């Protein structure tokens, strides 16, 4: 029996095991929504903005490892998901986005709500296809899911013209995919792996640098085994957080621009760098010419373009992290045999790292007048025992969340790293919550980012997604203000956000519990009450607007050249409770732009 394209679409999703689709309808996809409406296997989450749908699908995918699915209409529906596609492309998130298109006979005619979906999305998708014939639909969908989820994951867009969703064809879902131009490498080269094993046993100052690839590859156990067998400290990128337990004695925390002092110092002094599913982003390397000057580099990555792109690899290994590490661990066990010898060999290295850690810990000074943002984040993690799924937005709060996060499970720290998309947090948290309705999902955000997608509070309320929103309310685009303080003589060009809206009232308007902590003593009670509440909560923490995030490698600086605290000219300001005084002074001096 022949089926319509819309029915084929839904049957194909069923075949892929898709449980939920995020999207918004429109003219050319009405037929598809109509079919979805009449069945129960695939749930549709109606978002309030297509960007929200795309980030929700990302949150879902990042939390589960399964592809996130988006369905939107042509023209503006499609253009609204571009940020989500670009974000997913940068962070290697498996996403399948279905966009409606005008009927095939109208394509190219500037028809109503026509956009060149394929052209627009080409630079921000792993692959994209226009389906011209309903007979091709099932195969195209099968290929889209395959491409999105294999090799280096990424977003795939399938553009479906209106007539393709109404035309009919026999439905036969292909069993296998055969794409002659696509064949990702999973097995690493044995000889190279052996070489790596030898270098690891010889090194005196080795460090493992783990990135997002380890999480996509589900390789937490293998990393742990590698670290423990070879007695090597582990540092993680922002995207790698969760791949190695934050409380493990071999864990040295996050590296990079806002990474901890001791991990950046360890990178700088290492004699062997074992890079695992990490792409040597400039936020990590700092000044390339001074990056890891003494280290040999082993680089494991499934995508050959990541290898030798920014940094020379002495032992490049193209392959899947899990598969390669399994092999590597076998060699290591056969070569070494004795863990205590390795421990002995690296004792001075450990002592040095411990020393760096002891002398330059993360710190903040919490007085009793003004709440420090770090205090809120620290307390939230503590009171949730580092067990929730943490989703962040972009800015200072994101970096503090990363610094203080000590979770031990992959896929529990979800953030926008490569594109740094403000507005990612709330919808991504909702996507993660949709995937795990019973788990604690925290959305750590600040007013700048939050206001970029706050319309999704409706989605939270309607679908009863009980996310706990931790709003680090500093009245600024804090990260921008920090750069302005440090590099633009404190001229706050377009970074002050003022006091609107009243976020507690806002939450209430959506039927969501709103709580406020205006001073330090209120922080813990608010967290306690917020966590106890069964539905979604917005906790509005008023914090010191002038707190800066350290350590910081200034742009263009080398990894060991970290700023560790405010320079003297900023420190003159009394920070123990009179942070607001500073704006007044500045205004009086004619420097500031803050309203009195």
């Amino acid at each position, binding site marked *: 029996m022949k089926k319509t394209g819309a029915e084929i679409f839904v049957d194909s999703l069923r075949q892929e095991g898709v449980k939920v689709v995020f999207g918004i309808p429109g003219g050319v996809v009405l037929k598809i929504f109509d079919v979805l409406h009449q069945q129960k296997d695939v749930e549709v989450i109606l978002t309030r903005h297509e960007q929200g749908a795309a980030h929700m699908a990302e949150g879902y995918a990042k939390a589960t490892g399964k592809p996130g699915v988006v369905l939107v209409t042509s023209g503006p529906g499609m253009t609204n998901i571009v940020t989500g596609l670009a974000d997913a492309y940068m962070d290697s998130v498996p996403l399948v986005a279905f966009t409606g298109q005008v009927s095939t006979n109208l394509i190219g005619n500037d028809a109503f709500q026509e956009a060149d979906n394929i052209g627009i999305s080409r630079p921000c998708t792993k*692959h994209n296809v*226009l389906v011209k014939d309903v007979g091709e639909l099932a195969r195209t969908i099968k290929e889209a899911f395959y491409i999105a989820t294999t090799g280096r994951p990424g977003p795939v867009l399938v553009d479906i013209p209106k007539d393709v969703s109404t035309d009919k064809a026999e439905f036969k879902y292909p069993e296998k995919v055969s794409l002659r131009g696509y064949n990702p490498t999973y097995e690493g080269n044995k000889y190279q792996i052996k070489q790596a094993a030898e270098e690891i046993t010889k090194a005196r100052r080795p460090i493992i640098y783990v990135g997002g690839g380890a999480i996509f590859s589900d390789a937490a156990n293998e990393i742990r085994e590698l670290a423990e067998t070879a007695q090597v400290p582990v540092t993680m990128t922002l995207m790698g957080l969760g791949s190695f337990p934050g409380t493990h004695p071999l864990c040295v925390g996050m590296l990079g621009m806002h990474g901890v002092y001791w991990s950046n110092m360890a990178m700088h002094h290492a004699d062997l760098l074992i890079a695992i599913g990490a792409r040597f982003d400039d936020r990590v390397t700092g000044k390339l010419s001074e990056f890891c000057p003494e280290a040999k580099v082993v680089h494991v990555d499934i995508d050959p373009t990541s290898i030798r792109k920014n940094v020379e690899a002495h032992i490049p290994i193209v392959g899947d992290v899990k598969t390669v590490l399994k092999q590597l661990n076998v060699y290591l066990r056969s070569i070494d045999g004795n863990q205590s010898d390795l421990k002995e060999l690296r004792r001075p290295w450990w002592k040095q790292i411990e020393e760096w850690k002891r002398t330059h810990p993360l710190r903040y000074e919490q007085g009793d007048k003004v709440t420090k943002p770090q205090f809120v984040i620290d307390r939230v993690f503590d009171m949730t025992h580092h067990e929730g799924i943490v989703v962040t937005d972009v800015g200072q709060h994101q970096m503090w969340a990363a610094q203080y996060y000590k979770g031990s499970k992959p896929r529990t720290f979800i953030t926008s790293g490569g594109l740094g998309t403000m507005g990612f947090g709330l919808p991504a948290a909702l996507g993660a919550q949709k995937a795990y309705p019973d788990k604690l999902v925290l959305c750590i955000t600040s007013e700048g980012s939050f206001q970029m997608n706050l319309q999704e509070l409706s989605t939270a309320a309607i679908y009863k997604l009980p996310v706990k929103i931790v709003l680090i309310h500093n009245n600024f685009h804090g990260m921008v203000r920090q750069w302005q303080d440090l590099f633009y003589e404190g001229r706050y060009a377009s970074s002050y956000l003022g006091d609107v809206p009243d976020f507690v009232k806002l939450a209430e308007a959506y039927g969501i519990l709103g709580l406020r902590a205006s001073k330090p003593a209120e922080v813990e009670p608010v967290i306690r009450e917020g966590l106890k509440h069964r539905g979604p909560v917005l906790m509005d923490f008023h914090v010191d607007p002038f707190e800066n995030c350290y350590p910081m490698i200034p742009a263009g600086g080398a990894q060991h050249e970290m700023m560790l605290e405010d320079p003297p000219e900023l420190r003159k300001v009394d920070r123990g409770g009179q942070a607001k005084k500073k704006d007044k002074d500045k205004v009086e001096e004619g420097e500031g732009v803050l309203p009195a």
Partner: protein
Amino acid sequence: MEHIISVQVENKAGVLARVAGLFSARGYNIESLSVAPTLDPTVSMITIVTQGDDRIIEQIIKQLNKVIEVLKVVDLTETNFLDRETALIKIHTRPEHRDEAIRIADIFRAKIVDSSPTTYTIEVTGDVDKVEALINLLKPLGIKEIVRTGRVAIAREAAKVPTRREAQAAKA
């Protein structure tokens, strides 16, 4: 250094845009580009002439390989290869220049494929040096218009001659 890269791709809409977009998005330059179907009608061959140091060329090749519809990438500069280009050159011909134009064309085994009372159109095929040399000789006569195909290239079979890279290294 200049590299000639041949890229076998699925003969489908949008593939050329992906390949060209990759070059523009990443700031790689394209000196010339030609596309045509191969013996297998489902496969097209794109020949790209580009410039870059070893690291850039390595990235270009890896990035090309990453495109789903790309089937095979060969940096011909790493092999022994033949490259050819065709140009059509329309020149002004004052009566006193017509013989000279024919003589020059003859030397290059180029053909006059069209003529009018005031112009000749000359077709030439050869490697870049030859095409450029001919253009230089014709310039004084007055070139009205030139179109060039861009280069196509193919590996030589079992040649013992050194590669261009080896030859350059030997010279240096």
